[in-house]
């Protein structure tokens, strides 16, 4: 049922043709790319936009008075507007460009949270966070005596809002939680978490690196304080991401990097800073990449995103059903409503051996701890294999994946 509806509403085969790399064989076999949760491939529209911009409108932004500088500034600010629209922020100044999701979270840790942390203050986070939403908080633990309060997930990988609520106490200064897990696919009840945290006066950061790809994000509806995302998982280029922050928060934050673009006035003994977002964008920003991200957002939003999500879910169901039939495979992460990420353990076969054999069949999956070692410990595994689905995948990909898995089993046992 789901499969047919998805195909009717969204033409994955047409979308596939936008991604030239998918037509290029690896080891003489058709490429089956199931590692989009690590980084998505780029459509021609994104590559063309970057090339066209660099070939006809490129210069540095904000500083020059000349024609090209004005053009480039316009395009850069259009990109900010594109991100604003994509997450439905109230105003473009709430979008700070960063070099990726990791930098967005580090910016927040340094410019917002660090000055507000006294020894013993707490940061609430879940055990399924990516290292990029763990390590910046460890820095505050090491340097300022912050305490990390970990919220466990259920055996199916779901996150209970009551458990988050219970972890938020008088000393909590931030709740930092993934919108969608990069390992389990779990989609967290973000709106409810925000409501509970706000009831106790605590702000919330969502790591939206996966969420922004697969879910509709409306930061005003979520009433969320901060939302971090990255461009390269959104079918855009590497080297660009964004931090959404409520304007009142950004206004009250100290600068992050120091340099050009972020100042008001600089003298020998005094300095003032620019207003957000410029305050947090020192130096020449990733201009070409911003144009690429803007094109990626246009590419995605031109599609019926619900139909895309249905298509990805249909592939996830097909793969999940196939794996459930194998008594030597254990799926990790089966939360209701999860996104199109499938992590699994294979009995008697290490994830790296599986991934190596799949690779020679042209099937690209991820193997390892997925930058989520706390979660690996929670599920008592050293590593898992992970197949993640994107808008350009199709049923042939799932078949190639399952076929290659059988081959791995044959070779390794």
């Amino acid at each position: 049922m789901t499969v047919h509806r998805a195909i009717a509403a969204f033409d994955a085969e047409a979308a596939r043709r936008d991604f030239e790399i998918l037509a290029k064989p690896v080891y003489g076999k058709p490429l089956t790319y199931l590692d989009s949760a690590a980084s998505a491939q780029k459509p021609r529209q994104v590559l063309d936009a970057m090339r066209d911009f660099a070939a006809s409108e490129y210069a540095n932004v904000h500083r020059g008075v000349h024609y090209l500088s004005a053009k480039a500034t316009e395009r850069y600010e259009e990109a900010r507007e594109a991100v604003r629209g994509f997450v439905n922020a109230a105003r473009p100044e709430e979008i700070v460009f960063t070099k990726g999701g990791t930098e967005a979270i580090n910016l927040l840790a340094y410019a917002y949270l660090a000055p507000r942390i006294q020894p013993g203050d707490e940061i609430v986070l879940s055990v399924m966070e990516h290292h990029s939403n763990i390590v910046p908080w460890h820095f505050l633990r090491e340097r300022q005596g912050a305490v990390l309060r970990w919220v466990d997930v259920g055996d199916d990988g779901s996150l209970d809002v009551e458990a988050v609520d219970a972890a938020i106490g008088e000393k909590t200064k931030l709740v930092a939680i993934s919108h969608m897990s990069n390992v389990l696919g779990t989609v967290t009840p973000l709106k409810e978490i925000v409501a509970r945290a706000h009831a106790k006066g605590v702000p919330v950061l969502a790591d939206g690196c996966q969420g922004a790809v697969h879910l509709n994000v409306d930061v005003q509806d979520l009433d969320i304080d901060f939302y971090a995302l990255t461009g390269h998982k959104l079918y855009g280029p590497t080297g660009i991401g964004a931090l959404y922050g409520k304007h009142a928060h950004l206004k009250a934050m100290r600068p992050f990097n120091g340099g050009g673009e972020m100042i008001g006035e600089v003298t020998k003994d005094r300095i003032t800073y620019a207003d957000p977002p410029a305050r947090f964008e020192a130096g020449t920003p990733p201009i070409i990449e911003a144009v690429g991200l803007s094109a990626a957002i246009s590419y995605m939003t031109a599609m019926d995103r619900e139909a895309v999500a249905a298509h990805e879910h249909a592939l996830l169901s097909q793969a999940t059903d196939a794996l459930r039939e194998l008594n030597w495979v254990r799926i990790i992460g089966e939360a209701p409503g999860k996104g199109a990420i499938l992590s699994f353990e294979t009995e008697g076969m290490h994830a790296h051996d599986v991934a190596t054999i799949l690779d020679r069949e042209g099937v690209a999956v991820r193997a390892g701890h997925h930058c989520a070692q706390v979660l690996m410990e929670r599920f008592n595994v050293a590593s898992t294999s992970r197949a993640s689905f994107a808008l350009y995948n199709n049923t042939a990909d799932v078949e190639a994946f399952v076929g290659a898995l059988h081959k791995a089993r044959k070779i390794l046992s």
Partner: protein
Amino acid sequence: MDDSLRELYQEVILDHSKHPRHFGKMEHPTHEADGYNPLCGDKVKLYLNVDMDGRIADIKFEGRGCAISQASASLMTEMLEGRTVAEAEKLMGGFLHLVKGEDAGDLGEDDRERLDVMAGVSAFPMRVKCATLAWHTMKSALDGKSALEGGAPAKSE
């Protein structure tokens, strides 16, 4: 099947990985070290008992990892038992060249033949670290250092 895969996962390798030799803990080692591959989370712990003559009288390992890292550790323990420290280091030098597809240098014919089962790794650059983990850990144990990045130094003597 892909020839390079066949060579990588040949029977000897799979046998070592499924039935690792010298697997287990040693109570009173003269040398020990932890090895850790932060890329994949694989761990190995190596115990050595080096006698008065500088000979590896006993060797054991524990750990978890992929077929390549387990087989490499198992093969290493089998080959090092009874060797002198100097011989062990020479063997390691040869091994490190071999898995990178380079000339293993001046090794005895028997050693060369036994190490050769790991040579297939050289066709898989992303997996070379799996093969070398145990060997680097052995070196750390002999040097009295830990191969565990950021970890405490292992005891020696």
